[in-house]
């Protein structure tokens, strides 16, 4: 009987992996469902076992079974690890993803699982915290705070009850690394959390997963049940979110677990001292916790030896949007933005020139190709007026309307604001109004992409109507608020509105309680600064020279 390996990752399933798997099972093969390797242009992907090698074919359809099994299929890719996209990676965190059956304890143990936990439990908690400090690991959720220092605070905090909370509320558009890891190697996250529990003296942990990730929720629940004996006395449970982007902010997430509205808490007190249910709490992103087993097993040195400046180790970068070779690319810090977008991503999927990339999700800045020499590093991006965030890179071609994207950033903030602080709650709505006036007043027509990146274009006329669209299908309060101001009482000239937009962004940036209101100005101002021609201002000289 031939063994074949086919991904069960949500992205693979969305591309038809389930149908392919069924076809192979019907043909009498033993089908092993794995996580995804992370290159979606070759999915649905099937790997056929040949001795101790796996020969990959992709993309494939259910009709291709016979040709694959006799080796005549034209889409033969050879061994996955040899493909340039994978050969250039340094897979520390994602080493097992795509290779193992995510719910097989035997597979996990055979591929180096639990070594880190055993080393940690044989050591004093302080020694474990020291190892994490020495590795240079920083918060992979986006804030970049040193993980070891956070753990030290919780270890030193008094009290018998402490918690480990994993932030798996990966709401940023353009990011999917947390989802892929939870679906492809859930025991790795569980092991990381168990190590954290030993290091700080916690007995129970929560994994808060957004409801938009049904596959990850199910996989994590199954994995927790399977590994309960291995991580005892530490216990874990999954909590599903309920559709609120702001719950990715750590204190809003804690309130959500407690059964409240997901509103941001003012700090201090730090969650490390007074977190979940008022107890000392380690709250880390999925990727931060999943990096820990490698650090313990291979040594902090091995992790810290890779990287750039104060950003040590690897970052699972996600290439998304209008990009040819989209997917997950884990690599040491320091690689440039241009290398990621052009060399690895292969430019746009539509074949048109890249005009902008947004790094770090809806709160990240837009960068033009003239800034592609930026090294991927926390400090370098901060200095350039952006953030690496959760390392999602969304690529746009030259059909993008940057004023429209700036408006969307404000619209998204208005829809998702928790409402606790005024700059974010009111400012985002005022921001949408200002952007509407700028878009209405500029000489260039709005050019929302009229056709699809891939596949046939629409025959139907899809010109957007001039009426304002609302993001929420609720009662239209936003709509009423947006158009409640009498335009004859305000200066609607482009210059005045642009100045007003900058002033508003300044208020939001420095006056908001958390990153939602505080960072929404990043995409808005970067769009305005780098693409002024979309806001009715003269184009920068640089773009004209290119």
């Amino acid at each position, binding site marked *: 009987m031939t063994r074949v390996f086919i991904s069960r990752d949500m992205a693979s399933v969305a591309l038809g992996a389930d149908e392919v798997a069924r076809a192979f099972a019907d043909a009498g093969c033993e089908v092993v469902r794995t996580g995804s390797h992370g290159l979606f242009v070759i999915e649905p992907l099937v790997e056929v076992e040949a001795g101790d090698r796996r020969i990959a074919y992709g993309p494939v359809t259910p009709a291709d079974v016979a040709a694959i099994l006799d080796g005549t299929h034209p889409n033969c890719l050879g061994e996955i690890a040899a493909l340039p996209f994978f050969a250039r990676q340094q897979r520390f965190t994602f080493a097992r993803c795509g290779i193992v059956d995510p719910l097989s304890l035997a597979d996990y143990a055979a591929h180096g699982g639990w070594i880190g936990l055993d080393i940690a439990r044989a050591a004093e908690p302080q020694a474990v915290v020291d190892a994490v400090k020495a590795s240079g690991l920083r918060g992979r959720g986006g804030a970049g705070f040193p993980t070891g220092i956070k753990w030290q605070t919780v270890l030193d905090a008094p009290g018998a009850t402490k918690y480990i909370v994993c932030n798996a509320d990966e709401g940023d558009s353009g*990011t999917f690394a947390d989802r892929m890891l939870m679906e492809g190697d859930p025991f790795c996250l569980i092991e990381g959390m168990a190590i954290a529990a030993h290091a700080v003296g916690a007995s129970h942990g929560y994994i808060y997963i957004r409801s938009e990730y049904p596959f990850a929720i199910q996989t994590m629940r199954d994995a927790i049940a399977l590994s309960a004996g291995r991580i005892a006395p530490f216990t874990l449970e999954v909590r599903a979110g309920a559709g609120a982007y702001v719950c990715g902010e750590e204190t809003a997430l804690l309130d*959500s677990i407690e059964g*409240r509205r997901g509103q941001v808490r003012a700090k201090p007190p730090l969650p490390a001292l007074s977190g979940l249910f008022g107890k000392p709490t380690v709250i880390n992103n999925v990727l931060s916790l999943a990096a820990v087993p490698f650090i313990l097993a291979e040594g902090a040195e091995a992790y810290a030896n890779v990287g750039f400046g104060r950003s040590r180790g690897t970052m699972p970068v996600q290439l998304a*949007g209008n990009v040819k070779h989209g*997917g997950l690319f884990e690599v040491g810090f320091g690689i440039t933005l241009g290398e990621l977008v052009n060399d690895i991503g292969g430019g746009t999927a539509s074949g048109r020139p890249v005009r902008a990339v947004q790094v770090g999700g809806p709160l990240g800045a837009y960068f033009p190709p003239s800034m592609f020499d930026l090294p991927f590093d926390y400090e370098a991006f901060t200095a350039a007026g952006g953030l690496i965030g959760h390392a999602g890179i969304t690529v*746009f071609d030259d059909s993008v309307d940057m004023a429209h994207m700036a408006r969307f950033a404000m619209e998204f903030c208005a829809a998702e604001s928790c409402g606790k602080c005024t700059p974010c709650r009111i400012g985002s709505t005022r921001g949408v109004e200002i952007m509407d006036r700028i878009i209405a007043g500029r000489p260039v027509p709005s050019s929302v992409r009229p056709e*699809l990146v891939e596949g046939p274009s629409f025959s*139907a006329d899809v010109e957007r109507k001039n009426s304002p669209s609302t993001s929420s299908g609720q009662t239209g309060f936003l709509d009423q608020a947006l158009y409640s101001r009498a335009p004859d009482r305000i200066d609607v000239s482009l210059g005045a509105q642009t100045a007003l937009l900058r002033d508003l962004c300044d208020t939001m940036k420095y006056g908001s309680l958390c990153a939602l209101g505080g960072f929404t100005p990043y995409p808005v101002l970067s769009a305005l600064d780098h693409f002024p021609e979309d806001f009715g201002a003269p184009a920068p000289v640089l773009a004209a020279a290119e």
Partner: protein
Amino acid sequence: MGLDEAKRLINGWVRREGSGRDRLLPLLHMVQDEIGYIDDTLVPAIAAALNLSRADVHGVLTFYHDYRRQPAGRHIVKLCRAESCQARGGAAVEAAAAERLGVAMGETRRDGQVTLEPVYCLGLCAIGPNALINGRPVARIDSAALDRIAAEVAA
């Protein structure tokens, strides 16, 4: 489902799962999964079961996008509106989907057959535009995919 039956469902769940304040979101998820939406008439029962005020439950219920307070259509189409899908032609798909399904974004069609809702990122960002059709992920939505979706929700 009648009010008495719903109350039995809620109280039975609380007896099994506990009545701590942190059970509120899982309880709301359960009610919506079982009944399809969370009617305002159930709020007092939920509040009583967890020893919370009605205002408190109402506040949580209305904060999160997932919870419905009206019945949804027989089919639910959640279409991604986030940046990565926009970069791949999402705005055009959104307009075409509304036209093809005969329902505006955020609304339920008059015949109760389909609800079209926005979702902000499904984590399939390299293969958009994406949607969840009755919980099933669908990627690379184009004109042909919309035809298939329209046929599916007609059933």
